[in-house]
């Protein structure tokens, strides 16, 4: 049996793939992407430079920020931790490139492509929707594109990134909680329906 194992999304087969209230807010499950958890001491000499060369994107040093460049992104997860997001399938090669670039340094590169599911939340009422379950202030004065928050949404741990001004957000949640959070969002958009 030479056929390949089929991949499935983080949601149950029966769950819809998009929710929302037209004109107010839409929520969509994002396609899988390659993700690497990188642990590295940014103060170590040459560390950040080597990483940037290997990845083609700088590791953001300012807490709670996200840098993105032609299909790749680097999310700050901690003082010595980042999440590298690359197109699906490229993670293995990037992992090797990065590990080789950082050879000899105390670092860790772990493939976590299946650890998190991602939802995209867009629209005028996106902030009102997320405010139902997230204590972070998403007001434009406090939270801008390129910033992210490691926080709780509906009591589960998430990463919220603002990806555009209109506003649109990317919510990363651990895969085992994806179905629960999806139903929570489904219920929370009810109010914005017609």
């Amino acid at each position, binding site marked *: 049996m030479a*056929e390949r194992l089929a991949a*499935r999304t983080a949601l149950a087969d029966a769950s819809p793939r998009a929710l929302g209230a037209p004109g107010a807010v839409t929520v969509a499950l994002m396609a899988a992407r390659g993700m690497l958890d990188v642990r590295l001491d940014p103060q170590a000499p040459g560390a950040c430079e080597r990483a940037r060369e290997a990845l083609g994107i700088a590791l953001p040093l300012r807490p709670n920020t996200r840098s993105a460049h032609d299909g790749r992104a680097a999310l700050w997860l901690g003082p010595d931790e980042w999440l590298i997001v690359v197109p699906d399938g490229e993670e293995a090669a990037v992992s090797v490139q990065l590990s080789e670039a950082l050879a000899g340094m*105390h670092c860790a590169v772990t493939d976590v492509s299946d650890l998190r599911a991602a939802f995209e939340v867009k629209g005028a009422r996106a902030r009102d929707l997320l405010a139902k379950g997230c204590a*972070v202030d998403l007001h434009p004065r406090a939270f801008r594109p390129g910033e992210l928050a490691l926080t709780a949404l509906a009591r589960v741990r998430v990463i919220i990134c603002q990806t555009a001004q209109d506003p649109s957000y990317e919510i990363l949640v651990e895969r085992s909680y994806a179905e*629960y959070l999806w139903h929570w969002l489904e219920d929370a958009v009810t109010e914005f329906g017609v």
Partner: protein
Amino acid sequence: MSQHFRLPAGGVIARNEPLAFAFNGRRYQGFRGDTLASALLANGVHLVARSFKYHRPRGIVGSGSEEPNAMVRVGTGARVIPNAVATTVELYEGLRAESINCWPSVEFDLGALGNVLSALLPAGFYYKTFMWPNRAWMAYEYFIRRAAGLGRAPYAPDPDRYEKRFEHCDVLVIGGGPAGIAAAGAASESGARVILADENPAPGGQLLYSEERVEGLAAREWCENGIRELRARDEVRVLTRATATGYYDHNLVCLLERVTDHLGEPPARLPRQRLWKVRARQVIVATGAIERMIAFADNDTPGVMLAGAARRYLGQYAVRPGSRAVVFTNNDSGYDCAAALAASGVRVAAVVDPRPTGAAAARAAGRGIRVLDGCAVIAARGGTRVASVLAAPVSADGARIIGTTEELACDVVAVSGGWDPAVHLYSQSGGRLAFDGVQQCFVPGPAVQATSAAGAANGAFHTEECIAQARIAGLAAARHCVDPSAVGPVAPRRTPLAVTPLWEAPAHARRAKKFVDLQSDVTAADIALAAREGYVAVEHAKRYTTTGMNTDQGKTGNVVAYGILARVTGRTIPEVGTTTFRPPYTPVTIGALAGREIGGALDPLRRTPMSDWHVAAGAVFEPVGLWRRPLYYPRAGEDMSAAVERECLAVRQRVGILDASTLGKIDIQGPDAVVLLDRVYTNAWDDLAVGRCRYGLMLREDGMVFDDGVTSRLGERHYLMTTTSGGADGVLGWLEDWLQCEWRDLRAHLTPVTANWATVNVAGPRARDVLARLESTIDLSAAALPHMGVSAGSLMGVPARIARVSFTGELSFEVNVPARYGLALWEALTAAGAEFGITPLGTEALHVLRAEKGYIAIGHETDGTVTPLDLGMNWLVSGAKADFLGKRSLARSDTARAGRKQLVGLLTLDPQTQVPEGSPIVSAANAGRVGRPPVPVIGHVSSSYMSPALRHSIALALIEDGRNRLAEEVAVVCRGKPVRARITSPRFYDPKGERLHG
């Protein structure tokens, strides 16, 4: 539908929108903008309730959330509101309300018997009686509980939705009266993010019914301009029907917004109520003030109401509270009420004022209103509706009647005992209170959190001064957001509202009931009784008399109670102090506090990649932490034991398949990873080769086992630790704590990867045959992949890792693939294994199989008080290591003593008897004394199953000095009956573990 008492013009009501409603079965009419209370008064209905304890007839006293009496049941069926406050219920078409706590009707209530016996029911009477015969309290309690309580709790589940949301702002202004509007206006001028919250349907407060001119404009016009200006600013949010219910730490303020309570048929998508959790950098408390009653004989007679409420019914609702009024006031604000009554065509029989003649009295006399100065109302008469009052000259201190009594016919009595700033939220913020002797009220003192008070809430009772003070507070608050050290100008001096204290009018009859807390039926005599019996501390007096302990939390009566308590104990009010202001300001619907995370969403539910398959296969589940794992997979006609037997035999004889994705997985990388393992586990790890795994036991620092699992070495400096499903978060937190706080020099990185991998355990003699069917680069041979070995490669085109780890005691392969492929892997293995009779097994079968092997299970054999030595796992405790977490504690005298409970096997003498898990164990000698306690317990059953492979019951137990009592007979006490059993080795099946190495 006659509304006799509706004024022909005026009011903030929609006269073109008549609304029909029913009260106690009778139909009435009101208008859009009415409350249930104002609509009832418009139709001349005053009697609305029966009091809590004496079941005396009660009318409407207030006009808002301070109302103590008018509690009614609103709505029917599932949407009933048991104790609704009529003065805050907005009228809608078809509203139905009934009086509560009375039978058969509010006009004629048998409960009034309590009033007849009231002499026997002073405050705290229930502490002094109901003690005979001994232990008979529960018989009395049966009747007491039925008499107590207001409305009936709803019986149907709640059909309404409740939402919650977080919000942030620079300045939160609580209260939308003149002070609130001015403060919000000033704060938002600089573009600050401002929220103005008001509990009423429309902001404005007193401006909605005041005749005075404000900054050259009519009161209502000033208010409308202010609100229009606020709504026009982008960063200002004006919330109406939103009560600030609680002020918590670090300026978190909860607002309860009543979204659809005022709509008869709310749209389904909208929540009934929304709880706002606002984090504000600055808070301005502009909550106004609440008028006080005065305690005089029978002051609870329907028709006796607060003067401010009477003005509001006249001005805001265009309702005459009666035809002939007496105003009883100890401060000038009462005269505004008299003027408003007169202007609306209500005959004002007299203004009774205990103070000597003042300017206000002179102005009233000038308008032809009779003023009885130096007098007090000493009693109301009338039963279910006031018909007259008795007024008499009183001494300067208000304690004695010093002249002839005069009866004044009237059908409404407007009372003003002074005004109390609504300092509840300010006090909840931790702010101290000070007593304003001139205005006889508590006012905000020094603040603790980033908050300030403005307007009447700060003791400024004149509108223009409220506005000036509020603007300064608003500007200061906005500036503090930018520069916390900024010091704003001080608010202007206040011209006080002079109040001559009169808490209690003298009574002509000895036994008259002068009510202090109307809702809890507490009289002035009760306060005096409490003091007489030594309950002089304000908190004692409150609890002894239950003053202020009902749904209105004593808003109109508490300070009156403090005044009377001070007088009878010879103290000043500041010396008496106040009771603590506890949230919420007004009662909050429990559904709104719970929000949408109820029912199935009470807690998050975690799923594995194969969850759908288990559900489709008809698995019965059990909760494991936030996961749900299949317990067993019943086929047609099978109960649990039959299904478990089939699943166990499948694993022992052929091959089983188990979803182990819930096990915790922690990726550990770094040169010191092995040092970390050595420090957290009891055994040594430095000799573990790459491609091998090892079992580890993790202790807390007190030496007790708290988790276990297998750790694999995947690379030179790369390990993968597994933990129990329930312990995953705990272990991760435990390791992070030590690495980040104690061993900061250790170079080891942790990355939790539990949900990244789908884990399928294939176990049984034919396990390798099944796996061999799948195309893979991984060599499954015993040589290449021995027991406790691990190797990685690809499986059916995807990255995979296979470990020879066995909890069942059989040949076992733990196959890990990235989670997205988990279901496909499970389906492929199930298909490949069909010819070998592959059978899915649940956690119950897994536990039977591991118990047959004598393997421990965290949570069964361990309960946080068990050491590795108790479990007989001495072989796992490294003698060589100088230290590991918990090691030192193992040497403590009690932890190292002989006679501790030790893990042993247990076989019932009757092999078909299975003892319940948890059953206590006693010595054989004590078996006979089980019915005659106390009987010393020597241990308990930690695991107990029927073993299909051995065809008899097996059990594991923790028994005192167990390992030295092998073969000894003991008695397991099952639901009170002793069952004889024998202590054995815990390894029942394949003790040498040959089957593992196939």
